[in-house]
C-alpha cells in the first residue's frame, strides 16, 4: 500500500508540502515520487468529484448490459474498445456472468441515452443484445455518500 497515493486519492488538492507533513517526509521527495508515478501512468489524472444531483440534476446515467459475439483471436477486446471509445461511455468493463460488457453511459437526458443505445450501440456489428438500466437515485458514488446528515455534536473537551 502506497501511503502517498492513499492520501492523494482522498484529496488530490493537497499540496506536496501538505502531503509531506502528513507523511513525515520532505516536500521535494514527495514531488519526485509523484512525478515518477505520473510518468509511469500509475496516476492517470486528477479530477473533481461532483454531486451530480446538484451540479446537473437533469443528467441521466444508465448501466447497459451488453452481450457480444467474441471474435477468433481477439476475444472481446476489439469490440469492447470500439464501444469504450464513444465519449458518452464513462466506464466499460468486461464482466463474468450472464452478459459480457457493463457499459456506463451518461447523457444530458434519458432520450439522449436511448438514442445512443438504439441507434448506435445495438446496431454495431457483433453486438448481440443490450439491456439498459437507468439510474434513479444516488446514495453513494465514488466512495462518498450523498446527503449525509450534518456534523455530529461532540464534546469539545473530554478526559
Amino acid at each position, binding site marked *: 500500500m502506497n501511503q502517498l497515493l492513499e492520501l492523494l486519492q482522498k484529496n488530490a488538492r493537497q499540496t506536496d508540502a501538505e502531503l509531506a*507533513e502528513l507523511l513525515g517526509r520532505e516536500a521535494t521527495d514527495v514531488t519526485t515520487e509523484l512525478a515518477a508515478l505520473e510518468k509511469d501512468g500509475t496516476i492517470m489524472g486528477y479530477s473533481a468529484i461532483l454531486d451530480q444531483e446538484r451540479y446537473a440534476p437533469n443528467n441521466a446515467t444508465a448501466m447497459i448490459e451488453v452481450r457480444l459475439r467474441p471474435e477468433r483471436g481477439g476475444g472481446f477486446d476489439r469490440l469492447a474498445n470500439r464501444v469504450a471509445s464513444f465519449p458518452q461511455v464513462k466506464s466499460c468493463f468486461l464482466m463474468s456472468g450472464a452478459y459480457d460488457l457493463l457499459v456506463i453511459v451518461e447523457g444530458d437526458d434519458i432520450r439522449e441515452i436511448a438514442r445512443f443505445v438504439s441507434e448506435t450501440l445495438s446496431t454495431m456489428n457483433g453486438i448481440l443484445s443490450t439491456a439498459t438500466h437507468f439510474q434513479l437515485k444516488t446514495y453513494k458514488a465514488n466512495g462518498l455518500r450523498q446527503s449525509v446528515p450534518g456534523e455530529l455534536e461532540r464534546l469539545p*473537551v*473530554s478526559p
Partner: protein
Amino acid sequence: MSLDPQRHLAQQIQKIPRSGIRDFFELVLGRDDVISLGVGEPDFSSPWHIREAAIYSLERGETSYTSNLGLLSLREAIAGYVSETFDLRYDPKSEILITVGVSEAIDLAFRALLDPGDEVIYHEPCYVSYNPSIALAYGVPVAVATKPENDFSLKAADVAAAVTPKTRAIILNFPTNPTGAIIDRKELEAIAKLAVEHDIVVLSDEIYSELRYEGAEHTSIATLPGMKERTIFLHGFSKAFAMTGFRIGYACAPQVLTEAMMKIHQYSMLCAPITSQVAAIEALRHGAGPAEEMRQAYANRRNLLLTRFADAGIPCFAPGGAFYAFPDIRATGMSSQDFARELLDEESVACVPGDAFGPSGDGFLRCCYAASTDSLREAMTRIGRFYRKHIS
C-alpha cells in the same frame, strides 16, 4: 433550604476535587468558534459494520441482561484477541469480565483490592480517574512523576523509591493519556521484578496499545515472569475501534481477582449493555481493517503536528502511542492553566492544560490529534502565533 454538604455528603466525596478537565470544559462550552484539540476520543464514528451489528441486534430484540461476566461469545472473542495480540492466555469462562468501559474496571479493581490506608502507586501525569478511583476505594494514591527528560516514560527506580510496606498495587498506562509516552521493555521488566519481590498487584491499563507509531513496540507486563498471576490486564474498545460511547471495557485476571471484581460489578452494574457487547463482538470479528485505517490516519496527523511544533520552535517529544502530543510550553514562563486559558481567549483553540492530569504535567499542554487535518493545520498556525507572542 438547601442541604448542608458538610452534614450530608460523605467526607470521602468532599475531599475529592473536581476534575481539572471539567473546569476547562465549562470555559469552552457554549463557544462555537473554537477549534478543539481538547478531546480524549477518536474523531471517527464507530466503523459502520459495528454500528450495523448493533442495529441488527436491536432488530432481533436482543434487549435482555447478559451474564454478569458478559456474553460468553464476547469473552471467547476477547480471549482469542488477547492471545493473538498480547500473547496472553485467559480462560473466557472464569478470567474475563466485561465492564462498562475500562473506567469501571479500574474502579472495580481498586475496590476489590484495597483496604483503608493501602497505597497504590500510579505514574503522573495520567488519566484523570486514577487518583480519585484509588481515594474512593479508601486507598492512598501515591504519585510517581514521570519526567520530560525521559519523554514522560516511567523509570523503575522511581517506582522502587515509592514502594512501602503498605503498597498493594501499581497502576500502569502505556501508551499514556495525556502524554502519548510508551515504556521501555527494560523498565517494565524491572517494575515486574519489584512487583514480584514485594508481592504487589499490577493493574495494566492498555487501552491505547493498538495505537502505536513508527514501529514502537508494546509488551504487556502480564507476559513477564511471575506477572500473569498478579496482573489485572485492562483493555477495551473505545480507542482502537472508535467505540467510546458504546462503553465496553474488560478486565482479564486470575480467577480469584476476576471473581472479586465480579461481585462488585454484579451488585452495581449487573452487566454491560447487551447492544454494546454485540457491537464489540463484531469489532473483534471484522474490525481489524477499519482499525488499521484509523491508526494510519492518526499516524499522518501525528506527523503533521510534530512537524508544525518543530517549525514553531515549540519543544515536543515524539510520542510513541495514543493520539496525544504533549508539547513543552515552559519557555513562555506561563503556567499550563494560563497558557490554555489565554490560548482559548486569544486564538480560540482549546488544548487541555497539562496539570489537569496531575501537578507534574504543569508547563505542558495536551493536544489531541484525533481531529481533521484542516482543523489541526489551523490550530497549529494559531498555537505557533500565540507561542511566538508570549515567549519571553
